[in-house]
């Protein structure tokens, strides 16, 4: 048996076999942890954008659209981002398993912790406003991306179901304004008795969303008017069309 020992040591010397350096293993371990961290970070971004889309989906509209809550939830569900989140969680699991001690933990534990970490981080990214910026970037730069903007356009261009949106082009009177909708059509909007959400005031070139009903061809009676971004949950009331002339 000792011949084999000697043969092995001789082969190591003859072939000049050298142990891999400590730096090699340090770099290898670091790379794996880096890739794990990156997967969790990208998963966080996906989770953050999904949270953003769910948060601003305007859930109160499902009745206007004639859907049940479940149907509406399926419509607004951010499938793309959840698929991306799942993908990155898969990567996170793979890289964690390849860390030095990672194999000791069960698949369920690793994936659950990664998902929780991503959701918490995504929530933080959402709170600081980063996911909203990313959503805008994707919408503007990625031609096939159908995010919240497209979803909003679809929902808010349903005048038959009492939902309309566009830009104010003219203040006709205290009770009427003209808008150009998202498809380029002009509408006369009766705003008498309507509630303007948030700190919104009727101003030309302002983009708005209107809840109400159609009263004829290109004529709409508004019950509630919201800013294009958000729901205008803060404050609200009936505004004077000409704030310089009349005050609330």
């Amino acid at each position, binding site marked *: *048996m000792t011949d*084999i020992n000697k043969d*092995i*040591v001789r082969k*190591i010397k003859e072939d000049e*076999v050298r*142990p891999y350096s400590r730096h*090699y293993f340090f770099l290898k371990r670091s790379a794996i942890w880096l890739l794990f961290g990156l997967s969790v970070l990208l998963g966080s971004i996906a989770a953050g954008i999904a949270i953003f889309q769910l948060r601003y989906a305007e859930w109160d509209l499902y009745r206007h659209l004639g859907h049940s809550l479940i149907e509406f939830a399926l419509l607004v569900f951010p499938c793309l981002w959840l698929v991306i989140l799942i993908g990155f969680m898969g990567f996170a699991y793979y890289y964690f398993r390849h860390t030095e001690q990672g*194999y*000791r933990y069960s698949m369920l534990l690793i994936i659950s912790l990664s998902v929780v970490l991503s959701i918490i981080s995504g929530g933080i990214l959402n709170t600081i406003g980063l996911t909203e910026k990313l959503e805008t970037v994707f919408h503007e730069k990625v031609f096939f991306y159908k995010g919240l903007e497209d979803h909003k356009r679809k929902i808010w261009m349903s005048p038959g179901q009492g939902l309309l949106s566009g830009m104010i082009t003219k203040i006709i009177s205290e009770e009427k304004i003209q808008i150009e909708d998202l498809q380029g059509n002009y509408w006369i909007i009766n705003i008498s008795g309507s509630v303007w959400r948030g700190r919104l005031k009727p101003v030309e070139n302002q983009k708005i969303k209107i809840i109400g009903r159609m009263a004829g061809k290109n004529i709409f009676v508004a019950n509630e008017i919201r800013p294009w971004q958000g729901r205008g949950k803060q404050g609200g009331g009936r505004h004077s069309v000409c704030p310089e002339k009349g005050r609330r």
Partner: protein
Amino acid sequence: MTQKPSYENMSDEQLVQLSLKDENCYYYLIERYETKILRYIHRATNVNKEDSEDLLQEIFIKIYRNLNGFNQKLKFSSWIYRIAHNEIVRQYHKNKSRKTMFSLNDEDDAGNILSQLISDEDICNIYESREKATKVREILSQLPNKYQEVLVFRYFEGQSYKEISDILRKPPGTVATLINRAKLHFKKMAKRHHLA
């Protein structure tokens, strides 16, 4: 190489450090584990003597290359068994002409494992019958590789669940599940072959 007694008293970790400084000292590390690894190769493969020695050489060269990667949180024996196991799997996939990876060539081994898997009352009957030992080998070789490898580590190499977990890089719970399932499989097949 003349200071054998002092090397015998050294821990594996000390020998690793010495081998990194002087490749001649690696001789003592090989000597310590050579028999165990060679026996494991015989249990885990059905290669001939020459091929097993070649495989042994490749394993120890690989261990030498990776000495700086040895994690001291692990037992050194678990670490080298891990390298040995991975190298055997690599060779198996390279030469897939063999039907199964694990093959028990030793009759005593076959009897040993059966005594652990079935009740003690059956031991005497089993040892008396060579035919039964052959059937045991057949049954074990028919088990899926994932069951064979855990049974080999547990009942032939005498590794604990934690050590098997470190060798195979699987969670301890998974190892326990695999061993239980392997035992159930074995008992079912043993019943079919009228062994239990």
